[in-house]
């Protein structure tokens, strides 16, 4: 049986832990609300039956530089979601190790049994209910008034901790977006979505009245994994060997295999034979992590200092000083 802890203190400790690891935002979602909003069989308890708390972590999105780069670069820089996952993964261990309550890092994956784009758990919903983001006109991407766009990860724990409230106000739509909408009938995100998958309306209260999102078109545009089965079917349907070859090896699709190969731990870059025979790789004193750990750096620094001192003495002797 786990020890008794002050829930507020635990919450603060968790916040301290995740922020030290690089998170920008932290909050706890109201479990009841989550269970009520989630589709049947999709709430937190479907994953961890004795869940008592849902802890949410938000990490920052792209740098300013990334936002000004071309879309290809931005898309391949990808996002910082893996950082959010790492922090949440650590948090689950932290909760178990430090407080003794069973915890789980919520897998950020699709549920293969539930259908198109149905996640195992909606981390978007967790974060929103935890008050660290609010749904936007842009396909419900969460936005935060201070941090902008973030990536989120969640941890379920059997430890009961006090939940937070959702943000009282939704920063979306921004006042300038409302102005543009009144003029043109479109917000910036609607206007510039390349596949026109966003539409909707803003009410007289300047809040989102309706948001329509074509998730299929969005995913086709931006998530290449959607294309893999299509690529394979195209290969089978190809009219001639050139088309078939292009379906598989075309530069755009090649990226898919590259990423798959990385995922599968395939041979990717080097056979290393050139590096195996390179004297620098073989003799560099700190190339060996064990040597680095064994205080070799210090020894080298000392040896270098000694050699330098000797050299200075020799020079002085040559000059007859």
């Amino acid at each position, binding site marked *: 049986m786990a020890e008794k802890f002050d829930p507020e203190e635990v919450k603060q400790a968790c916040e301290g832990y995740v922020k030290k690891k690089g998170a920008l935002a932290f909050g706890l979602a109201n479990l009841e*609300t989550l269970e009520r909003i989630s589709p049947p069989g999709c709430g937190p308890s479907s994953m961890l039956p004795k869940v008592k708390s849902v802890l949410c972590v938000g990490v920052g999105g792209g740098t300013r530089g990334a936002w000004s780069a071309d879309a*290809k670069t931005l898309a391949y820089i990808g996002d910082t979601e893996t950082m959010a996952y790492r922090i949440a993964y650590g948090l689950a261990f932290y909760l178990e190790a430090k407080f003794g309550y069973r915890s789980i890092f919520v897998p950020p994956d699709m549920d293969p049994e539930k259908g198109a784009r149905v996640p195992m758990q909606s981390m978007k919903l967790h974060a929103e209910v935890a008050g660290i983001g609010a749904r936007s006109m842009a396909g419900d991407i969460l936005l935060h008034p201070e941090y902008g766009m973030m990536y989120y990860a969640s941890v379920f724990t059997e430890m009961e901790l006090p939940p937070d409230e959702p943000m009282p106000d939704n920063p979306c739509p921004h006042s300038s977006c409302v102005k543009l909408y009144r003029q043109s009938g479109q917000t910036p995100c609607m206007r510039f979505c390349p596949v026109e998958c966003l539409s909707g309306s803003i009410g007289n209260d300047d809040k989102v009245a309706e948001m329509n999102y074509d998730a299929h078109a969005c995913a086709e545009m931006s998530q290449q994994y959607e*294309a893999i089965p299509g*690529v394979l079917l195209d290969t089978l349907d190809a009219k001639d060997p050139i088309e078939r070859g292009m379906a598989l090896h075309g530069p755009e699709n090649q990226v898919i295999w590259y990423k798959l190969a990385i995922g599968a731990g395939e041979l990717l870059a080097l056979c290393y034979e050139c590096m195996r025979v390179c004297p620098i790789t073989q003799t560099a004193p700190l190339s060996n992590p064990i040597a680095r750990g064994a205080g070799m750096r210090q020894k080298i620094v000392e040896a270098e200092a000694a050699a330098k001192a000797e050299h200075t003495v020799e020079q002085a002797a040559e000059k007859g000083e």
Partner: protein
Amino acid sequence: MAYGVTQQMIDTFGEIVFKLSLNKQTRRGDAVRELDFDALDAARDETGLTDEEITERIGLLPEQVGVVRVFTERKHHKIDQHRRIYHLGGGKRWKKEAYRSPAERLRFNEEAMMLREAINFKPELAARYIEDGYWINETLNGWLADHAQNTPDAIAILHPGGEVTYAELKSRVDHLTNGLLSLGLMKSDVVAVQLPNTLDFVVSYLAITAFGGVMQTIHMPYRDADIEFLLGHAQARTVICLPAFKDFPTAEVMLSMKEKLSALEHVITVGDMEIEGTLMLESLMIEGTPEIDNPPVGSDPFLLLYTSGTTSNPKGVPLTYQNMMSNARVSVAEFKMTSVDRNLSAAPFSHLYGLFNFHVALNAGATNVLLPAFTPPDLAKMVEATKATTVFLGPAHATAMINAGLMDAHDFSSVRFSVFSGAACPPQMMETYRDKIPGTRISQLWGMTETAGATYCRYDDAADIPVRSAGRASPGDEVRVVSPEDGKPLPANTEGDLQVRGCSVFPGYLNNEEANADAFTEDGWFRTGDLAIIDDDGNMTITGRTKDVINRGGVKFNPADIEDLIIQHPKVEMAAIVPVPDPALGEKACCVVTLLGEESVTLEELCTLLDEHKIAKNKWPERLEIIDEMPLTPTRKVIKGRLMDKL
């Protein structure tokens, strides 16, 4: 089908399953802040359902929902959407009209692909031309655009109707390109042109090639049968022509071709005469800068010329920009052509020679002077009126002007350089021509449709070279003479079969496997069918045609010099010597002549002439045929194949 799902089920339920799933999401209001759970429940269909929820809504098994959904998603899938990402960000904003997928933009007709498949260079040679800088990514319209931008006011064209600057030419070409695109023409589609050397020709040529089309030329003298063969073989989609030419109702004949040839869709006529069923070129002049989805690049074919067919049916010769542009670009320096030159082509643009010199002048940013149709007085007047500085002509053009005294009557002093090609150049005539223009230089050029300008004398060559030879290989090209027996290269100054290899040499005939099999050696040398001698300095002189060689009982001889002698007979107008089968010797020489006047000639009289010139007896013709008209190509070469068929 899996789990009992039928295609009918997919068709019936697919769209509603797709719509109910998370593929399509609608949110009303702000659920998390409002926490109105009833409203939320009521709107679940809109926010997107799991397969299990869809099961409940429409009465299929969850697994069946999965199958139906997946197949419907596939139907909605537009492959390659992510390419759009490449057109975004970094200052680029999404503009719907600015993006078209490559699959949509880079389309080709089936006939166009057939033509493209005929472009078949040897990989190691292509690599060499690229590495050596001969083949680069350049196009005719790229050159035009450069001049229009850098020297917009320079005169591009001087023609009987006036002068046209590079900027004006570009604008006309843009307008016609818009018009041609409006007809649905696409890259590598063939557009045939039967026009004289007029501004309409130039604008048509540049507009056809601007959108990536391929221009097929049809020589002006060609009539119904030739035209039908050429348009049919090339699968031309459009033809641009005169309404009529002399007594030939061109437009009417072209329209009748539309009935016979399925690929032919449009007949465009120049001038202001409206002809039912044709489009007027002027009406296709559409203002604006053309938007070209599939722009031409260096490796594209852009010309489809046909051999004149002295021995067989004309053969289609596709040529790429890299072939022709490299040949013209390197020749500019060799001819010392500059932007101040005014270049006049007496040769028709329907021939390679005419186009070659047009390209050279265009590359240099010079002025092209247009002579719509050659007559000796017109050429002489045009030279004088335009102060042409470079003239590309044939020996017959010069002979006609000299004989008519036109070179004395007109001012030729502006001409600094004259290039002769198209037929053998009698040394006497070359010297006379040069003497008539003090200080001028002359050159001989040798080329074929298949080779472009393969050899020529350079501007700086010694004075005797152009009189006796067609000069050295053009940069990037090689010429050699090989033994007809074993195909081995022969030493200098030995007559043999001429072969050419190089950046300007065509990639193979269109749809003519038989001809392609014979055309090239293993290592990519083109067998020209000409006999030649190359001197120690690489200067090449054509001595005859391989196919004209007569094999009389094992003794082979080239009848060209004998023909030259027979033509000197006062009763003979034209002469050609062809082989006729002989049971004993295999072949015997038959001389075919047309007469100058009423008076006939006998075989004995001709042989006496040959005897006087000490021609070996075994080379004398053994049969004489007098005919009324010699079958000639438009370049006035005797079609010996037709003569042999008759005999």
